[in-house]
């Protein structure tokens, strides 16, 4: 059992960050620079998304909560089917059309997005909140020129004429590093390379200077060499424009360099949430350990075996009882199949939350043992991080 019984998840979340922030979100829409602590840009509370399918009810997202401050980056990490993409799409209301039930609260700059009507939400989509998707080839309309698609995004929210919109599209393509933007603006998506397509997607997302950019697996469909470029681009744009960024990925290496905070999702829930450095240095959840140990390193011996997480992600139609990770957890005990762990702060670490039934000391001991057996995950991750130069693999000799 956890030593911190009774602490409710939302309270912990709220206490872990801006504790002085006004609970009344109504008047905080205009940020006042004089205020030392401001309302977070995005606050998700107990978000639940359910789909009614022919096979039954799918609980894709099962009560997740997080906050994101202006200009900050949150990495949401998880396997396929963990609900991370649905969680991200719900912020924009893009799960509504597909027959899903969404409940909870998504406060964005003082407004509850879930309470807005479709047309009110449309005003925010693509303007204050923009999105970049996984596969740029299928996400761009194949029959329209890239420039026209960007112009459309601008004119959906700004009353500008076509000529200045086109000039702005060229400017945006230049900003995201597409060569010869005034020629490329008239290209069709299939005429661009994969990396250029994703740059064009990003240009489109930036068209109206969003406050929040949600990137759903933005590098997964790209070549490895291009992945690093796209991440560097996102990082630069975020810095220059002070955008908040939600980076959804299955790849811890992607978020290692970019995210301020990381939320690890498993079977529709956040199982661990911590500042990025803390998550890599002292992960608390056995699932996170599994993710970290399944990443290859460049400086390790070549014969080194990666440690996969045994089993496969649970069916969202029939999630396991108790701790949802218990069927795959090497440290699970019989009662873990009954007790459902809450997301609670690690003792002494108010901003590090974990949902695990193992005692805190046990977890620490287990992780130390694992970390000793390999190298420290901190070191291994810094070498997989895409934008860092690869060290020469001398240890293989």
């Amino acid at each position: 059992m956890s030593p911190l019984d009774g602490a409710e998840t939302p309270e912990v979340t709220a206490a872990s960050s801006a504790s002085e922030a006004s609970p009344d979100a109504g008047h905080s829409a205009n940020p006042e620079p004089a205020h030392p602590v401001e309302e977070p840009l995005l606050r998700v509370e107990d978000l639940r998304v359910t789909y009614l399918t022919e096979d039954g009810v799918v609980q894709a997202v099962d009560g997740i909560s997080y906050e994101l401050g202006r200009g900050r980056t949150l990495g949401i990490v998880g396997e396929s089917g963990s609900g991370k993409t649905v969680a991200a799409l719900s912020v924009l209301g893009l799960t509504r059309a597909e027959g899903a039930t969404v409940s909870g609260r998504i406060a964005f700059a003082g407004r509850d997005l879930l309470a807005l009507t479709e047309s009110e939400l449309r005003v925010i989509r693509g303007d204050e909140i923009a999105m970049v998707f996984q596969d740029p080839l299928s996400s761009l309309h194949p029959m329209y020129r890239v420039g026209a698609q960007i112009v459309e995004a601008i004119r959906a929210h700004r009353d500008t004429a076509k000529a200045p919109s086109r000039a702005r599209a060229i400017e945006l393509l230049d900003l995201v590093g597409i060569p010869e933007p005034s020629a490329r603006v008239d290209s069709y998506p299939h005429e661009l390379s994969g990396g250029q397509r994703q740059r064009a997607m990003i240009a489109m997302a930036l068209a109206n200077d969003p406050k929040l950019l949600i990137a759903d697996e933005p590098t997964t469909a790209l070549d490895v060499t291009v992945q690093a470029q796209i991440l560097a681009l996102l990082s630069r744009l975020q810095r220059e424009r002070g955008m908040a960024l939600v980076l959804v990925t299955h790849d811890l290496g992607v978020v290692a360099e970019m995210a301020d905070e990381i939320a690890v999702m498993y079977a529709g829930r956040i199982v661990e949430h911590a500042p990025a450095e803390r998550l890599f240095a002292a992960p608390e959840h056995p699932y996170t350990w599994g993710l970290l140990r399944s990443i290859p390193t460049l400086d390790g011996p070549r014969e080194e075996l990666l440690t996969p997480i045994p089993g496969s992600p649970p069916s969202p139609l029939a999630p396991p009882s108790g701790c949802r990770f218990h069927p795959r957890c090497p440290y699970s005990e019989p009662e873990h199949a009954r007790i459902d762990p809450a997301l609670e702060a690690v003792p002494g670490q108010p901003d590090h939350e974990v949902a695990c039934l193992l005692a805190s000391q046990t977890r620490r001991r287990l992780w130390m043992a694992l970390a000793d057996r390999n190298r420290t995950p901190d070191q291994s991750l810094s070498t997989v991080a895409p934008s860092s130069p690869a060290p020469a693999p001398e240890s293989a000799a």
Partner: protein
Amino acid sequence: MTGYVVRRVLWGVLLLILVSALTFVLFRILPTADPARLRAGPNAGPRVIAEIRANLGLNKPLLTQFWLYMKGLFLHFDLGYSYYSGASVKSLVFDRLPATLSLTIGSAIIWMAIGLPIGILSALRRRSRTDRGAMGAALLFISAPEYWLGLIVLYLFAADIGQIKVFPGAGSYTGLTADPQKWVTSLILPWLVLAAGFAAVYARLMRGSLIETMGEDYIRTARAKGLPERRVVLHHGVRAAITPILTIFALDVGVLLGGAVLIETVFDIPGIGRLNYAAITHADFPIIQGTVLLAALFIVVANILVDIAYAYLDPRVRYS
């Protein structure tokens, strides 16, 4: 692109030559198809037949005949003369073409105007009562044979035999240039009957295609941009979903221009189909040959137009 079109047209011409050659061969290997005998009629003696054979050039070597036939066909569109009436097939076909054109084009406009909006609505309100009702009706119209539907409609609405005398009945076709108003009223029933089945098919095609398209990633992108749903559906969804339907549309129109035999027969419209039907009942081979070649021509042309149109409709298709 130009190179592609030229190549495509040349292939079309080659195909037409092959079809012509095939009909030529067919007409000479069919057991009942001695043109001289057919032309002469049942009571003619051997001398008359020999004379006709010489007149028609049928006593020349087969290859020479073929050359003359192809030359006449491609240089003068010469299809020979009807065995039955002796009239030139070319003039018969051109006389009948306006009626078939009127029937096909009018009907095509109607079925697209009815079928596509119904398909779009059905796709957007999938599994709703609107959708189920529309698709049920579509199934009904697809299953109803058009000659049966034609007779029912005549029984109900024709001015002569109908229960409610609204529109002119069978055999009332009037040319567009002769009397535009009569042209419209005489064609309303055949247009609707011919369009009914096609509208049903196109509603289903549009529904299926749009449902598939609305699940595409770029539709999600369009929504994420904050576009109004109307624009998402029409500008992004329908734009992509309609491309394969236009392909089928061009081919259907091409086939119908070769003659809508059943409708033209039921409503007694003097079109290519009616001509063809009459020719078949009289074993009037030159006319059958002429209508077959005309149908082939329309289909080949429709195919070429589809291919060219595709390059404009879908930029991913670029012919080099």
